[in-house]
């Protein structure tokens, strides 16, 4: 039973570019949350998707956007990349009334 799958595992982008990160939730989970973990910090909530809609958003600018597909997988898009966007991006899936959040191993984004 696959857990949460994220791709790619590592990515290097140039300042000003755009990036798309992908997440496949754990089997049976229908909700996807995205977190940003900067070096030496705890994960910070970006947003959560449920029923293909953004259900809640953290304190991140509009450059961060997302999408959820009918198969519950999700994408995180970041436009106009800044050096400060360099971080580990974690995807977590869950289901209502379920067993909590299951995290993927993350995508390490480096902006140069």
């Amino acid at each position, binding site marked *: 039973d696959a857990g*949460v799958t994220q791709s790619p595992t590592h990515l290097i982008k140039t300042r000003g570019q755009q990036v798309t990160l992908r997440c496949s939730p754990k089997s049976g989970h229908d*909700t996807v*949350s995205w*977190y940003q973990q900067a070096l*030496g*910090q*705890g*994960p*910070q*909530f970006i947003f*959560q998707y*449920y029923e293909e809609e953004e*259900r*809640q958003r*953290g304190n991140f600018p509009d450059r961060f956007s997302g999408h959820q597909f009918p198969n519950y997988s999700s994408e995180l898009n970041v436009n106009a990349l800044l050096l400060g966007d360099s971080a580990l991006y*974690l995807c*977590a899936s869950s289901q209502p009334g379920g067993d*909590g*959040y*299951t*995290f*993927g*191993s*993350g995508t390490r984004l480096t902006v140069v």
Partner: protein
Amino acid sequence: DQQVKQNSPSLSVQEGRISILNCDYTNSMFDYFLWYKKYPAEGPTFLISISSIKDKNEDGRFTVFLNKSAKHLSLHIVPSQPGDSAVYFCAAEGAGSYQLTFGKGTKLSVIP
């Protein structure tokens, strides 16, 4: 403004002894608390949780204590094992909220 604080960046404990990891929070709306363990190059893994209506929850070697009046929780690991060496994150969730608010983490090293 950090709402969940883990004031000890690191902790070293001898194998077989007790490890105590501490966490403080400021937001009175938090009503559910979780501990996650994270190994390098992996996503956070759920360890144990506690609802605000309880003051203690046990699961094998892991016990979480909650002191609501002090807005403080702690994770006890007894006995500590070398495989417990990891970064431990405290996280909190408020009623009706879909986001986890994390602390910065405490790196636990269990010395054989």
